[in-house]
């Protein structure tokens, strides 16, 4: 009995949290979507609560958000909900928004992290294109902070879904994401040199890409005979098949922990 009690004690918070998020989503869909849009991503009458594009995300702490839900914002269309919903309902909506705002680092997946790391550097061959902490290749995105930048689903989708896009996953983004789409490219210079790589940026006059040799190339288009974007990505999207179930699960456990939380700011500047 004692062992069972401990088990329940450990299991309950996570389960309860998940239930609260599910309830919160139902309540959000019922009361909030009309103004704030589906999944809090901005509606017709009110700003996004979770979005790369607005200052709402990240600018308000959880405590501030909860206070706004409870008390409303005087002088705006945002009503006070504390006399319409119970405290536990408001807490559930808060839990749902928190889950939407969170990245993989907030919700890392279970698994054998050390084994996942071995898969990353070994069988998964991830370092052929990616780097963590200066080790690996710079052809693809650096993954050292991936769990702080992306949600669990975005990381999992990148490994399994061909239609996955590198950007546009609802995770935490840079203020203005550079258009680095990592499309495979084949470039031929006017003097006949052919280079394969992945795109970093381009405009009507110039092209920047990382060669498969890991070097950055920048050309004036006048120097080039052709620039051919190849269809599809170079990132394999069948890791759930080329890895065993355990290997895949552990790789996700490893990746969803790659990142850091900055500490509070200290001191001033001159």
């Amino acid at each position: 009995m004692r062992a069972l009690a401990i088990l329940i004690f450990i299991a309950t918070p996570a389960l309860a949290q998940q239930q609260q998020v599910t309830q919160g989503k139902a309540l959000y869909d019922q009361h909030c979507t009309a103004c704030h849009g589906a999944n809090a991503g901005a509606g017709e009458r009110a700003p996004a609560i979770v979005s790369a594009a607005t200052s709402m995300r990240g600018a308000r702490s959880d405590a501030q958000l909860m206070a706004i839900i409870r008390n409303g914002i005087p002088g705006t269309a945002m009503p006070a909900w504390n006399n319409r919903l119970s405290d536990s309902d408001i807490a559930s909506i808060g839990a749902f928004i928190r889950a939407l705002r969170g990245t993989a680092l907030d919700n890392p997946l279970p698994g054998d992290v050390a084994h996942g790391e071995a898969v990353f550097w070994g069988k998964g061959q991830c370092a052929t294109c990616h780097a963590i902490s200066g080790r690996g290749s710079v052809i693809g995105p650096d993954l050292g902070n991936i769990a702080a930048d992306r949600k669990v689903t975005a990381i999992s989708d990148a490994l399994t879904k061909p239609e996955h896009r590198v950007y546009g996953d609802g995770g935490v983004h840079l203020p203005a994401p550079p258009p680095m789409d990592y499309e495979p490219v084949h470039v031929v210079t006017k003097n006949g040199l052919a280079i394969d790589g992945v795109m970093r940026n381009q405009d009507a006059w110039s092209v920047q890409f990382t060669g498969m040799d890991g070097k950055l190339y920048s050309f004036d288009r006048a120097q080039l005979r052709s620039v051919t974007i190849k269809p599809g990505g170079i990132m394999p999207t069948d890791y759930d098949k080329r890895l065993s179930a355990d290997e895949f699960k552990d790789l996700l456990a490893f990746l969803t922990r790659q990142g850091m939380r900055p500490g509070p700011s200290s001191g001033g500047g001159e």
Partner: protein
Amino acid sequence: MGLKHIALAGLMLLPVSVGAQPSINNPGPSAPGDWTIYPGSYNSQRHSPLKQITPANAHLLQVKWVHHISGSRELEMTPVVKDGVMYIAQYNRVDAIDARSGNVIWRYQRPPASTAAYRGTSVYDNKVFIATTDAHLVALDARSGGVVWDVAVDGGRRLSGMGPFLAKDKLIVGVLDQPDGYIQAYDPKTGKHLWTWHAIPRPEDPEYKSWSGNTKEGGGAIWMSGSFDPEQNAIIWGTGQPNPPYSNEVREGDNLYSDSIVAIDVDTGKLKWHFQTTPHDQHDWDATSGSQVLVDTNYQGKPRKLLLHADRNGFFYMLDRSNGKFLRGNSFIDDMNWASGLSPEGRPILLGDGAKPSVKGTLTCPSTAGATNWPSATYSPVTGWLYFHAVEGCGVNFRSSITPGAGTSYIESPDEQHRWVSHIRAMDPLTGKRMWDLTEVRSNHYGPGLMSTASGLLFAPEHFGQAAMLDARTGKRLWHFNTGDYITASPITYILDGRQYFAIASGTNIFTFGLPDAAPAAGGKP
């Protein structure tokens, strides 16, 4: 052909008259077409060997691209360039930009976004280095922006905005003045802390006597990069004011090593020599201004190893940088009321109480904002002159009561005759003679930094936003472009595909200038 090869091919077409001899007047670390540390070269001359853009063709300069740093404000940052990529550093953020097109290659942003003043970075060993607002030092992979290492600052204090400076395989960083300023060195490979030099003495140090035992408010902020002298194996750096800044009666003595130029052994972090510009300061005249310029030249018939420094207090100092001894100096402004000159040892000779701040307000010339400040000076070996931004005019320094340590403030003098006016000044450092003087219109404040080129140009932007090119010999205006925002940063030049560019931060943007694509360069060569 990779980027590097293209750049090298371009370089071969240039007149190759520079960069061959490793002397203090051209000591690295940047290749002639690159700019890899804050001042460009260890000697802080901010003099480029590039000769493609000249007084004859500078009128053809045009904007090549502009890069906007979203969320920033009044950038005081000097970009660095290596192998065709420009790195724009701020606290918590680096933008890597294709130096040809202005296109983003990668961007690193660690939350939160910060607009605190940050002045640059170094590129070294395939890494770019920045400080964070949560007191870490971070190395990014220069190719991808990935974090290579991330360490907490030794001592736990946030690094100042001067940006990491690379000298002899060491990253040099600093912290501000409260409780005390210090310089630190880290290993750029690993982030390991190597040494710390404290500007403010501990009670057991002999220098403690120079504070009448009161160092409790500290001082000696390390907020500007200095220089590196490979021959002496020393970094040469400026320190900030003693605290409280305007009430010197509570800290009798010279207050070492505030307002000082210090030479620190780069391997051990030990002090080799010091020279204090403003002993017992009461006006916040940091010795950190943008000129710790190292020059080797003949003086009084002998080859000398010199340090040239135009100070915020209005005096120019020429030191023997092998021992810190004062050789000569002069006031470089017309409007000075706190000191009559310098003693044979280089100590200011005070007029009365040296314009002590008072309750009714004390006219102080130059003002606390400084006769010059962080924007860089430049030395041209071609003319042998030092060029710097000088501000004439006065401030009024107040204190709230006569109680020791009372609160203080300063304003620009409201008298028309003492209002701040910016000048670009050319001076022969060996004699103090003013060679020419250019009065800026409207600009009245810190102003941008300067740089010179071997072709005889002086890039001398104005505070109110004009990017301007002058003839270094005559001060004649050759070209200008209104960037539309304040300029309080220092400029650079670089070469890519055989074409020379100038770049500078203005407001929230980086502007890059070059000749029209079809324009013939100097002598008809590219």
